[in-house]
């Protein structure tokens, strides 16, 4: 048995094993160590896979030794290896944070179950990314969704239950639509393998069911990725979930759904005449712009910082969709780069907000007044992430906006450049609201004693803040991989 050739399956199975083991031990520390080991191992495996893909191209793995179009295939290519690295990397950073964070937010006797759920969620997200089988994708989507409903419902605030229920309903509708779409495609093509499906759809003459499949998949996945106006579940879910969960989901869940959308659009439908029949590009463009402006405007009027940045996430999803709408290599590069950059930025932002929550007892704008004086380091971190959301040079956000603007110019759409910059100004406004409260107001009398959060919270948060800055300066990993993935999706050889 050669270890290297089984890496694709180990990527999913290693975090999966840690979940039942955590339940079996029924002990907080043991569960934490097991899931920590699982997630770190997953991160290591994803790096190895990324290197392997860069060396020798696509890796295909046949589960149960049943060959590809019949059995379930795990397929690692330029795009999935990048997303795998992102998801498992964020998981590996957030998990140590959980230990210090959930002590305050979740009943201690259920901690081992929390870790098991976290491991399952990670497994599901990695599975969606690595699988090359449409139905397998749906199953992993359900694993990650069901576990994320539980994780959100664990929030200390009672509203977490309602938020989780809302997400459950919307998520289930989304998943149902996805499985209807997959079912229709299966009826028409007789295959569940995504790559095979793409080939068979090319000479499809009867269009109606395939068009319906495309529509169902688009709506279903858009619900999952919170594309405006299907984002209603997101703000509450992020706002009331435990801090660590907010950070993990904000950084990974919607991003993996974007990955699924890219996979269906470009690997399955991309080469077909059917895809060109629908005005998908215009649709994406309109929804992306609406999301960028409406969600950013709503964010400006929020008083809870977690909700504020959750709305900002919806706006950022708009940028990601905007890149898809260009249907060009530069546009997709922008999408994929922003997928990574925004994940890192939002992940670190929610981790830092969790630290503020731990010290100040809440994250409403009224409560965090003067936080810049009592927690200067954490506040500085939040400002750095805010700059990345705006897209200031030197941060990750700048790189993605730069590529978006390049893609718009490539298409000769000057007005879009103007709109991208204008929506960034809205980001300036909502970030400024935090800066004003944090630096220009005096802290509340009862919070003068608040101190910087413990190192257990600070170190993971600052690792991601560091990544936010790093990806703004050195873009070889992010842009390099994204460009390779975009070329692969559009079938262009660079």
């Amino acid at each position, binding site marked *: 048995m050669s270890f290297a050739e089984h890496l694709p399956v180990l990527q999913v*199975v290693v975090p999966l*094993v840690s*979940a039942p*083991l955590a*339940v*079996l031990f*029924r002990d907080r520390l043991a569960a934490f160590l097991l899931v920590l080991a699982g997630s770190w191992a997953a991160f290591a495996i994803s790096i190895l896979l990324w290197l392997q893909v860069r060396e020798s191209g696509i890796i295909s793995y*046949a*589960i*149960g030794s049943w060959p590809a179009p019949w059995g379930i295939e795990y397929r690692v290519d330029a795009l999935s290896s990048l997303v795998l690295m992102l998801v498992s990397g964020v998981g590996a950073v957030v998990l140590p944070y959980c230990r210090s964070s959930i002590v305050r937010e979740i009943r201690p006797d259920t901690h081992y179950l929390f870790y098991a759920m976290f491991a399952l969620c990670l497994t599901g997200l990695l599975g969606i990314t690595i699988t090359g089988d449409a139905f397998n994708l749906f199953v992993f989507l359900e694993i990650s969704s069901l576990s994320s409903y539980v994780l959100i419902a664990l929030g200390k605030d009672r509203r977490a239950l309602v938020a989780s229920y809302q997400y459950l309903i919307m998520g289930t509708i989304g998943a149902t639509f996805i499985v209807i779409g997959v079912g229709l495609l299966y009826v028409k093509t007789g295959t569940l393998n995504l790559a095979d499906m793409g080939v068979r759809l090319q000479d499809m003459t009867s269009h109606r069911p395939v068009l319906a499949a495309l529509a169902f998949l688009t709506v279903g996945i858009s619900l999952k990725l919170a594309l405006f106006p299907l984002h209603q579940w997101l703000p509450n879910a992020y706002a009331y979930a435990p801090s660590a969960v907010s950070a993990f989901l904000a950084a990974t869940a919607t991003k993996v759904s974007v990955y699924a959308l890219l996979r269906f659009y470009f690997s399955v439908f991309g080469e077909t005449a059917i895809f060109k029949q629908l005005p998908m590009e215009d649709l994406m463009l309109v929804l992306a712009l609406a999301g960028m402006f409406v969600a950013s405007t709503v964010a400006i009027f929020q008083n809870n910082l977690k909700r504020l940045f959750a709305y900002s996430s919806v706006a950022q999803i708009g940028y990601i969709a905007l890149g898809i709408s260009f249907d060009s290599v530069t546009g997709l590069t922008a999408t994929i780069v922003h997928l990574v950059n925004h994940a890192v930025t939002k992940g670190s932002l929610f981790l830092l907000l969790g630290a503020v929550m731990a010290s100040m007892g809440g994250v409403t704008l009224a409560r965090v007044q003067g936080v810049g004086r009592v927690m200067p380091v954490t506040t500085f971190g939040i400002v750095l992430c805010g700059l990345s959301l705006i897209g200031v040079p030197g941060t990750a956000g700048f790189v993605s906006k730069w590529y978006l603007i390049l893609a718009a110019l490539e298409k000769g759409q000057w007005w879009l450049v103007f709109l991208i910059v204008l929506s960034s100004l809205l980001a300036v406004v909502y970030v400024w609201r935090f800066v004003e409260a944090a630096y220009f107001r005096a802290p509340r009398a009862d919070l003068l004693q608040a101190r910087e959060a413990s190192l257990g919270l600070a170190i993971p948060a600052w690792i991601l803040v560091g990544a936010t800055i790093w990806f703004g300066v050195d873009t070889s990993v992010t842009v390099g991989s994204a460009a390779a993935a975009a070329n692969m999706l559009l079938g262009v050889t660079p």
Partner: protein
Amino acid sequence: MRNDMVLRVVGKLLIPFILMFALYVQFHGDFGPGGGFQAGTIVAAAIIFYAIIYGLNTARRVLPDWVVESMIAIGVLLYIGVGFAGLLLGGNFLDYFVLDSDPVVGQHRGIFWIELGVAITVFGVLLKIFYLFARRGPN
């Protein structure tokens, strides 16, 4: 309902047969309708039946919460274990062909253990759900 003679007698008579039927569904899953999921559901139904007649606390003495929770985990681990057995014997993950020198026997052997894992987990999960809901009292 502990005091109802008819229910108690019928329950005592039926439960062994329900369990037996579950085993039939479990082991006949290779050749006909059935398998681990259905068998696990039937076993859980038997225990839930028992709990309704003899009371939740009696049922929880027979199958304590920690046993139920562990079964959820053990079933999944058994499933993954079969996957790793395939790996260790030189095949891919979940490769049943290598589980025996005769590939067909290997397939049978693989699906046997997989279905057993499924049955254990389904049984555990359903019973856990029942316990959780049944425990919610007015207090």
